[in-house]
């Protein structure tokens, strides 16, 4: 390569700028223009159904059965598509903006706001009114005063205990308050043998688990549009977390994957997970009776009588305007509220239904773990208040990174959370 002089460098910069400008001009704009738009007859009998579950070993047969049942009963054609969970939101967003995706779409409840901002989701209020959904289920599909998603499964991220370890440690009752929780952790710590009393998240990737603890200590996280992370309550929560960390009651470098592995091997007394954890952990454990020892518990409260905090978790089905949107909306209602369908789905994949009738079906009501979970944890679960912002993931990351800095002793809780709040404010769009 010939040596580059100043003129060459300037020429290179100029050409780069020109190229980037030209490429940017070809790219679709933020509102989805620039390429084909969704078109076609909304009342058509052919529509798409996009779902990551259609490709996951544990669920695909059960989801496909729902698709096939609806298609044959209503004489419609459903074109299915799937993307991996970790890439799902990016792919669906790109395809909706490019006008290449319409019909029913499975969504994680955390993604609703991000997709709603594209302005292509149908308001399903009329369908929601007829479905018999639970209040908490309906809330997971609402955004901007509209019912944009019908709840397919509604659960929560909550605490799970290994009752065998607790018994060995002399803990006879599940803790209800922070004080009782700490006492239980200290008793478990005395067992030794490498048992982590609480396999709480301490890696930045999963440190968003601190948010329900901040709420437990009294921080609303968001008051209107004002981020309250950094207030006295959230600082107290992080200082308490740091205290557990220093006392080795929680372990360093743990994310959800590590926590499951620890719990599955009988090396953790408590950890946070979604209700589906039961099947996941059982698959990893050499102890075939572990599921019988698993017990969901409400997150301990600051003082007796308080409301336990839990993060809402679940899936909704939304409908993207375009060909077959009417039929897709009807399919969404069928998949999420037809009692025989949701009870059959629960039987296969253990995901709790979202309708009162579905929860009351003997197949569901007869499952003690699910019933307990719904009563103890999901009942008071609330969405993450940051989900309303498209940049919610970056906000969570900003908070998580600062909490990690506190855990490893690089910053005080007050300074770190003030910094996190400052970063988060810039991401409120």
């Amino acid at each position, binding site marked *: *390569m*010939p040596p580059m002089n100043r003129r*060459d460098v300037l*020429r*290179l910069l100029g*050409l*780069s700028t020109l*190229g*980037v400008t030209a*490429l*940017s001009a*070809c*790219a*679709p704009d933020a509102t989805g223009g*620039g*390429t*084909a738009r969704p078109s076609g007859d909304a009342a058509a009998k052919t529509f798409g159904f996009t779902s*990551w*579950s259609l*490709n*996951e*070993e*544990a669920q695909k047969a059960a989801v496909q059965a729902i698709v096939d049942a609806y298609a044959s009963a209503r004489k419609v054609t459903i074109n299915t*598509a*799937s*993307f*991996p*969970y*970790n*890439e799902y939101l990016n*792919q669906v967003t*790109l395809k909706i903006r*490019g*006008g*290449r995706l319409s019909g029913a779409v499975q969504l*994680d409840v955390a993604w609703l706001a991000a997709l709603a901002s594209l302005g292509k989701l149908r308001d399903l209020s009329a369908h929601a009114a007829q479905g018999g959904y639970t209040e908490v289920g309906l809330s997971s599909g609402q955004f901007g005063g509209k019912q944009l998603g019908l709840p397919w499964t509604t659960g929560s991220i909550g605490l799970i205990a290994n009752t065998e370890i607790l018994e060995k440690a002399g803990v006879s009752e599940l803790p209800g308050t922070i004080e009782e929780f700490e006492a239980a952790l200290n008793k478990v710590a005395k067992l030794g043998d*490498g048992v982590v009393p609480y396999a709480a998240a301490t890696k930045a990737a999963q440190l968003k688990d601190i948010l329900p603890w901040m709420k437990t200590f009294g921080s609303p996280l968001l008051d209107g549009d004002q981020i309250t992370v950094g207030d006295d309550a959230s600082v107290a929560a992080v200082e308490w977390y740091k205290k557990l960390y220093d006392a080795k009651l929680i372990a360093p470098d743990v994310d959800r*994957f590590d926590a*499951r*592995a*620890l719990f*599955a*091997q009988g*090396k953790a007394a408590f950890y946070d997970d*979604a209700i*589906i*954890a039961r099947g*996941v952990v059982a*698959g*990893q*454990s*050499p102890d075939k009776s572990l599921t019988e020892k698993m017990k969901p518990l409400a997150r301990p409260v600051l003082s007796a009588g308080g409301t336990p905090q839990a993060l809402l978790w679940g899936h909704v089905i939304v409908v993207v305007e375009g060909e077959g949107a009417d039929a897709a909306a009807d399919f969404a209602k069928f998949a999420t509220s037809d009692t025989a369908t949701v009870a059959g789905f629960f039987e296969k994949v253990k995901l709790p239904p979202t309708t009162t009738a579905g929860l009351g079906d003997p197949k569901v009501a007869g499952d003690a773990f699910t019933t307990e979970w719904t009563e103890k944890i999901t009942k008071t679960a609330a969405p993450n208040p940051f989900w309303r912002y498209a940049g919610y993931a970056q906000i969570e990351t900003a908070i998580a990174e600062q909490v990690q800095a506190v855990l490893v002793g690089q910053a005080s809780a007050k300074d770190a959370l003030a910094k996190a709040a400052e970063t988060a404010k810039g991401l409120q769009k």
Partner: protein
Amino acid sequence: MTVTATPSRTAALVRPVRTRRRPDVVRSRVAAWVAVGVIGLFGLAPIYWLLVTAFTPDEKAFSFPPSLIPTEITLEHFVNLAKNEKLFGYLVNSVVVSLITAVLSVIVSAYMAYAFSKFRYRGRTSLMHLVLASQMFPQALLLITLYALFSATGLLGAYTALILSFTTFTLPLCVWMLKGIFDTVPSSLMEAAAIDGASRWRTLHQVALPLSAPGLVAAGLFAFVRAWNDFIFALTLADPERQTLPPGLVHTYLGEFQTAWPDLMAASFVVSLPVIAAFMFLQRYLVGGLTAGAVKG
């Protein structure tokens, strides 16, 4: 009387005199071996861990603390892989797309590189820099742009979309790599061919290209591996039935709540074998191709 030395005696006579090595030489050799050992360990540890996980039963794979030496071995994950017809489809797609990308990249970049190396014309340097600059675009920007472009032209979902997109990011490096190689082909050879009556076309194909064979192989291998490993373009631009192995593996083994690590490791090991084989088979060309043009004679 003549004395004839026996072979053993002769050997004894010519045996080199042993000298004691200086301590600093010994120390530096030990340090070199330690360094090689550490680097080797660093490079091979992930491959070892991949293999161990692939041969470990599911319930043992998640044992805590993890065990460096497997206590139980299973072939179940390789059997699962063999039974998975969908993965075979992804493999075929990978082979088709990567091979065509490699061939297309070599053909196009050879002509471009030859034009940059052997002809002098106005704007040559700018064009060369433009090719280099295109390597600097963020992939996300290219992806969105190509998505819109292929969508508008009806190519989205087809093999063509993948091959063209892969070629866009293999071309710049291939061109620069081959330009360096053509620079080392003496111009006197071209002039001799011209004096003998060969056209420019014939000179390129019968003189320059054969002499640059190692470089062409190296560029082709680079393009092949780049296309073979790409995840995000293959996931976004291709229909599910035309997607390549990286998105295929993610589709098959990674889920919302669970990753089938042992199965994924077994599949990753098996699908990396063609690339390893290609490198071993073409190694002698690769080394020559990558270093050609590094030093001008």
